[in-house]
């Protein structure tokens, strides 16, 4: 065996050892996928959510946002349907959302700060209450994580689990009268990776799993850019944000109750 060959062998072994050392010395611990939650040393629910707020851009930046206007595309590729969504959100619980899926439905929902409602060209209007109203408020309030206690009584970190290919803190948020929401926050980035929740709808409760595929950023604030939701019938619904504007002037009439909802108000 020549000296050159021996040197090559030695270099190869040394490289391999270096690699193995790097792997074992890594601060990341392997996480086994486990259906049952495993309680390990982990932060509290509030700490995870606080980290999430930091990852979004920080509390100070988020509080400076007084309004959000969002344009998005919604599609269910397997069903061959897609449409446009636009949302307007402002302080004091004001929000409105318009979803138009050609040949299927035009649906509006919103709140004037007091009444939470839904109105569809197909099924008519209704004023929401109970779990449906609470979940609608959670969905359409700007940055609910800034004060999660207004939506849930408890938020508890149940350990870590693999979700969407990443190690995530599992945070269960509960409030009496509404289904538990389980949110997965990336251990590495702190960002929300998705959730499992039972959504209360007009037709009943539906179990859905949402995954945030990517984040966008504007003015130093991150926002979910692509959200994929698995529906109870197995199909996937994809919402892709096309544009998001902060602190634009929104016409107050945007949050006014539509006529068919006004008619439902108790006299």
């Amino acid at each position, binding site marked *: 065996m020549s000296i050159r060959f021996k040197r090559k062998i030695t270099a190869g072994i040394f490289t391999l050892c270096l690699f193995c050392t790097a792997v074992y010395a890594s601060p990341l611990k392997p996480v086994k996928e486990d259906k049952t939650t495993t309680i390990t040393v982990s932060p509290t629910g509030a700490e995870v959510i606080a980290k999430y707020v930091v990852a979004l851009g920080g509390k100070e930046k988020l509080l400076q946002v007084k309004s959000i206007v969002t344009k998005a595309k919604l599609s269910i590729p397997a069903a061959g349907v897609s449409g446009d969504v636009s949302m307007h959100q402002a302080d004091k619980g004001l929000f409105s959302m318009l979803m138009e899926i050609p040949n299927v439905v035009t649906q509006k929902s919103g709140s004037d700060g007091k009444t939470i409602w839904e109105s569809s*060209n197909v099924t008519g209007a209704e004023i929401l209450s109970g779990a449906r109203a609470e979940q609608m408020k959670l969905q359409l309030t700007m940055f609910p994580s800034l004060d999660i206690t207004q939506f849930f009584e408890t938020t508890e970190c149940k350990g870590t689990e693999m979700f969407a290919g990443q190690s995530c803190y599992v945070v269960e948020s509960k409030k009496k009268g509404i289904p538990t929401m389980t949110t997965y926050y990336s251990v590495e980035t702190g960002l929300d990776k998705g959730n499992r929740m039972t959504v209360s709808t007009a037709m009943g409760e539906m179990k859905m799993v949402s995954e945030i595929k990517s984040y966008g950023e504007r003015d130093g604030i991150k926002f979910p850019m692509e959200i994929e939701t698995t529906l109870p019938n197995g199909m996937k619904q994809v919402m892709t944000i096309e544009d998001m504007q902060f602190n634009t002037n929104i016409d107050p009439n945007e949050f006014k109750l539509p006529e068919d909802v006004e008619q439902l108000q108790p006299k």
Partner: protein
Amino acid sequence: MTEQIVSAIRPQMWIDGKLIGITGAAIGSLAFLFGTALICLPAAWLLGYGIPLPGSLQRWDYIPLLIVFYFGGVLFWNCFYAGVASVINDPNTSSRTSLLFLPMLPMFAAGLVVSQPDGPMMRILSLIPGASSTAMPMRLVLGEASSAEVLASFALMLAGIAGLRLLAGRIFTAGIMLYGKEPSWLDIATWTLGRQEGTANMAPIARLCVSVICLTSALLNTGAAQDPFDPSIQLRSFDEVWQTIKNVHWDRELVGEKWDAIRDELRPKVEKAENAIAVREITQTMISKLGHSHCGIIPSETYQAMEEQSQNGGEGISGLTIRFIDEQLVVTQVRPGSPAASAGVEVGWALKSVLRSNLKNAAAENKEPTTSYAEQLIQRVRAATEHQVTRFETAMGLAATSIVTGSIGDQLQLTFLDHDEMQQSKDIWLVKGHGTPTKLGHLPVTTVEFRSLRLTSDIGHVAFNAFLDPSRLIKEFQQAVTQEYANSNGLVIDLRGNMGGMILLTMGMCGWLVDEPTKLGLMTMKDTPLELVINPRKPRYSRPVAVLIDECSISAAEIFAGGLQDLGVARVFGHRSAGLVLPSNVVSLPNKDGFQYVTADYESRSGRVLEGRGVEPDESISLTRVLLRAEHDPVLAAATRWILSQSK
């Protein structure tokens, strides 16, 4: 120095050397990355890190192709770089440096349309040299590309590489002797197109490139026309059907071991199938073992035919409604002003045969006249519906309607037995129907018509053939109940021949007939019961409501009629409905067929299971030819009498 080297080596060789060198470097980089991945990935898996394989590597069978396209792309852009580099004096100050970013454009373009791997933009990108190295691998992994397209893309890429290599050589040849200034665009154009000593003559190269382009075009057209049978795609389609039902069906026992056994029995047959029709039949056989309605394969040809029909103005109609009565196909309705009415056809006549000629539909198998005989049709349908979910009367009504419809301009020679049992022959040219073509998801294009008429007894009569096109249907129905007939004696909602559609619409339309939020029925999905909820809409329609149904009232029409019957807000007249009621979805399969599958069980508000049973009318009207002769529309007449009795 340069002059000495140029005199020793041909510039083209010099460029070729550069290309070999930088391509070799790229190969080396890839090999290093690949080698690192080969070590790191298994190590990571062994240590418990759940790193998923990239999607491209999960398709092992495509890896050689992906590698070929990768190298082709690297070589293509290296040729480009070699040419561009020849005209840049100093990359820090040259305005042409931005050209070096050009390779990113096709990558971005492909990224923008990656969600539609089989869309037109991606198909175009997969053929353009330089873009195809990104786009074609995306299409192979995420979508489908025929062999012809892959070959064409590869051929075009080779032609592009050959052409760019020679162009780079020509530019380099001229540019190498320039120093101190960069050549102008005119100079570059002159070098590439003019003759130069020591470089290839561009004329034969240009001819070669044109030949390649023509050949690939021919190849593509051949590929497109033949649409070759791809066993792997057919197998994927079969698997997708099986798996979808397994995942979605609410009856765990039905889709448990028995469903696995059905797959084990039928999959080998699909593997051996030699054409798409055979695969379709096997798949349909599998689906039919569930014994459900709303579950089946929609052939891709149906979509093409409906699309073509829609582009040609829509379905051609005769104005006839035909049903099976007393072992005959009998005319039950003749639409006023229709070709059948103009020809003098009357309600109660028995159809004996239909000679169809002067066919306008280009997709027809042939343009020769065809004759359908009623008796043969009855026998065929009877045989086809034995042991099937769809009962004979429903299938017969649908089949009979289909032989008197077609494309606009088709000529039908209809032979009838009139009221006196005398033979009558009538020539009819099909005309455009009155509805609006509507496309919902993966359902074929459907023409939806809403009719509204005030009867002489001051009763509103609305009829629509499907619960589709919600914007228009809701608006028309709202207008009818809140304005047109708000103060009439009553309202007849005619659902005879209504093929169903969106369940949401049934909920919405019922809103004007109730005062409080209430339930229409219950859908039971896998683990998820969902109620069909009616939100009351104002103003409530308070006059008597009659609903007309027959054996061809299907699906959402039955949900609507049965729900109103249970609520006690309408009286139902006619004939037992089809009993085909399960909620469903329609998706597109890899082989381009549609696949409709049930997603939930359904029971009405009162707990009635309508699937297989239908809605029994409150007042059943048995039609006969004699009754039809006497009353013209006995079902409508009965409904009208009832409404008038309620109004007194």
